[in-house]
């Protein structure tokens, strides 16, 4: 096989070198030996009639195995080596690529100088990888800040716990009537401060989640009208004190559902900020109205006042900016309305303020309806329902006021493990006032010692303690119990209050989790509930009710109200999910994209029955990674899925044990919990 001068020129121009394979590792150059290749492998190589290319380059030597296999097969097309870098005699590095093919029945090897394509490829790959590294760096930075924030929150929570404990203690005895309002104010304000601290933590966690998922997707939903009602109820006393009338819009259509994207605690804060603002600017003897209205594709909420309206020189945008304050009567730090804007926009909504034509101002926000609202008939009448879970939760989390402590039906022995002496003592005092007996210890090690010496009905275990912390102590207790058939009820306490903190405690083995500062009635309820009915039932008492309600709603819709079918679905899900998770874990560990796509798809289907949008999204992401044969980030997504499935599992167990205590589900839920 020869080559014409024009063909040789073409090869040189293209940076190509063609060799005919003669067998036994020998090649003959087709045409003159290319100059560029001589510069890499040395001039002497061009002088020989045949050349053993494998000896020139270890990479090529390796590739020739593949090339020979190809030439000796009947396969058509070409086989490529991929890029490799060859360092020339002068130290210059040249990217090369080789291909084996057949031409006119000859075995031909093409060596290509891929400098141009290589530079381009390197550039985009460098950019892509730099971006990945930058994203990882940002994630780390956010996580570090989160840790710092948790520490600060924890430190803030400790004295707040003590303050709430003191107020609670004051309400135990007969309080003189003239002191009662002060104590109630103290309780209310400490409760508010607690909500604010949690709000900051939630907002920060929300930001982190948004960065993690790369999407602004919000899965939770809340009833706008219920939040508006709640806000009016909460603020009416404060407004009354200032001689301002606070009312729920009389035109509110109570027959329809007003469920939008968002979550109730943060929505409460938005209404709270609007109302504080209205209270600040409204003259006495005027009316402030809170309402909810249909805004076409969005659901709107508003707070109307009859004050002076917005200052002419202040746009709504400025009002919602960071550290913005009113001109004449400044509010607080100027963070409130900024928080509202940030939150509403993260939920995909809009926020604003305007001067009303009739006078006064309107502060409003609009949110997309909850994703499932149209399915369930957002505009339809509200179905007769049981008492909403949320109301139950609100009652629980609201400040206790001067509700009497009362005596418990049964005296319980409670071990209080808390390193902060004042909190420990106050908790013990409250327990004693309730008629229980309490023993206090200052760390996990002492808790283990106390449990070894005496029997306790319930352990209250603080998470952060010096030496052995609460999580370590809980694990140690569970380890001791393993195989004994015994089960010590442990309620985890923590100044940190995110879902991650809760999950960490539940994973360590606590039966329930109570964020500090806690309300004493809630504490009593949990302890007495636990001691009366065992730990599994407690899950329903401590899990956020909205989530369990949402799962129940989905299940009901999916099964058209068929309870037997629902129970069977829950049972098979609880049994199958761990196996499916193990399959997914295996697929990721083996980097088996096809298996990942199949297993994640199967899990997604079984989870979707319960709604559980976070779990569905995580499973969907894993499935997509599998389908795209791109498992980058699969480990993280798997961890997210694991977390969400744990939540769902708790919700399902709660559903299984709560509504029908005689149901056979209860037994299986118990067993599942015990196995864990």
């Amino acid at each position, binding site marked *: 096989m020869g080559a014409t001068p024009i063909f040789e020129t073409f090869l040189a121009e293209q940076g190509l070198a063609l060799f005919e394979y003669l067998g036994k590792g020998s090649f003959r150059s087709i045409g003159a030996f290319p100059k560029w290749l001589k510069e890499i492998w040395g001039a002497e190589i061009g002088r020989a009639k045949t050349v053993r290319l494998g000896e020139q380059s270890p990479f090529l030597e390796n590739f020739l*195995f593949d090339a020979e296999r190809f030439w000796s097969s009947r396969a058509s097309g070409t086989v490529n080596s991929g*890029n490799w870098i060859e360092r020339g005699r002068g130290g210059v590095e040249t990217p090369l690529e080789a291909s084996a093919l057949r031409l006119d029945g000859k075995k031909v090897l093409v060596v290509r100088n891929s400098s141009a394509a*290589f530079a381009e490829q390197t550039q985009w790959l460098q950019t892509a990888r730099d971006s*990945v590294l930058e994203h990882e760096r940002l994630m780390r930075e956010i996580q570090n800040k989160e840790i710092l924030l948790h520490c600060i929150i924890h430190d803030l929570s400790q004295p707040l716990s003590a303050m709430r404990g003191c107020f609670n203690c004051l309400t135990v005895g007969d309080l003189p009537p003239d002191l009662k309002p002060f104590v109630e104010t103290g309780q209310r304000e400490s409760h508010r401060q607690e909500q604010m601290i949690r709000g900051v933590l939630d907002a920060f966690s929300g930001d982190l989640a948004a960065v993690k998922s790369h999407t602004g997707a919000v899965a939770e939903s809340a009833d706008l009208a219920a939040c508006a009602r709640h806000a009016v109820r909460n603020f009416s006393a404060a407004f009354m004190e200032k001689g301002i009338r606070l009312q729920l819009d009389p035109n509110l259509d109570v027959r329809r559902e007003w469920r939008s994207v968002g979550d109730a605690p943060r929505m409460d804060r938005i209404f709270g900020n609007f109302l504080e603002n209205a209270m600040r600017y409204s003259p006495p003897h005027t009316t402030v109205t809170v309402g909810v209205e249909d805004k076409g594709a969005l659901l709107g909420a508003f707070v109307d006042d009859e004050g002076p309206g917005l200052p002419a020189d202040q746009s709504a945008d400025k009002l919602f900016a960071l550290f913005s304050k009113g001109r004449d009567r400044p509010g607080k730090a100027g963070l409130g309305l900024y928080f509202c804007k940030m939150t509403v926009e993260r939920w995909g909504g809009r926020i604003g303020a305007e001067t009303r034509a009739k006078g006064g101002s309107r502060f409003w926000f609009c949110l997309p309806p909850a994703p499932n609202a149209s399915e369930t008939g957002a505009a339809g009448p509200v179905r007769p329902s049981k008492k909403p879970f949320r109301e139950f939760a609100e009652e629980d989390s609201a400040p206790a006021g001067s509700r009497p402590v009362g005596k418990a039906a049964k005296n319980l022995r409670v071990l209080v493990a808390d390193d902060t002496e004042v909190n420990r003592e106050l908790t013990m005092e409250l327990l004693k006032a309730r008629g229980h007996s309490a023993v206090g210890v200052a760390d996990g090690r002492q808790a283990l010692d106390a449990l070894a010496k005496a029997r306790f009905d319930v352990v209250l275990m603080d998470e952060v303690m010096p030496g052995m912390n609460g999580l370590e102590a809980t694990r140690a207790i569970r380890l001791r119990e393993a195989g004994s058939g015994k089960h010590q009820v442990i309620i985890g306490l923590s100044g940190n209050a995110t879902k991650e903190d809760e999950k960490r405690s539940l994973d360590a083995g606590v039966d329930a989790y109570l964020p500090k500062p806690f309300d004493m009635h809630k504490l009593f309820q949990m302890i007495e509930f636990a001691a009366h009915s065992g730990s599994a039932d407690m899950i329903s008492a401590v899990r956020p009710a909205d989530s369990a309600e949402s799962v129940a709603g989905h299940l009901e819709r999916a099964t058209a109200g068929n309870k037997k079918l629902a129970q069977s679905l829950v049972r098979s899900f609880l049994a199958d999910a761990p196996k499916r998770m193990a399959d997914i874990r295996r697929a990721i560990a083996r980097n088996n994209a096809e298996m990942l796509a199949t297993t994640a798809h199967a899990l997604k289907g079984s989870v979707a029955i319960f709604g559980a949008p976070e779990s569905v999204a995580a499973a969907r992401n894993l499935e997509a990674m599998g389908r795209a044969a791109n498992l980058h980030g699969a*480990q*993280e997504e798997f961890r997210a899925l694991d977390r969400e499935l744990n939540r769902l599992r708790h919700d399902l167990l709660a559903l299984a044990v709560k509504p029908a205590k005689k149901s056979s589900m209860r037994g299986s839920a118990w067993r599942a919990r015990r196995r864990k």
Partner: protein
Amino acid sequence: MLTFKMCMLGSFSVGKTSLVRRFVTSIFSEKYQTSIGVKVDKKIVRVQDQDVTLVLWDIYGEDAFQKLQMSYLRGMSGYFMVADGTRHQTVDVALALEQKVTEAMGRIPFVFLLNKCDLVDQWEIEPETEKNAAAHGLGALRTSAKTGEGVDEAFLRLALAMLPK
């Protein structure tokens, strides 16, 4: 003279190229330059009183953009599974890759390298994870291509394991 093929494997940007460079030329550059394709270097070392040629295959980092081609590993006598101690997810990639290599090539001596150990304040690998990594192959070593810490030791440990018994 004995010649051994050693491969550098691991996620992208863990420092495979830098480790080879440090070992072969004692040079380190702070600038991250991503690798495409394969670069082969050689170095002669003295192990147990004999000269051994190490043929070092620096193979591009595994990620969503580039997947490891198993044919590059043909004939290797040992390998380094490299992770970046400041990025915990690179350990997951390394462990998955190790499993893939073992499935394809059988058991081959390797050393787990936790690189960038000079960045102590950014270290993300939990002692438990490090212990787990050390249980694989010929154990785990902390290395720094920047300071040279652990680099010669790593190459010699692997070379020693490759010598005929």
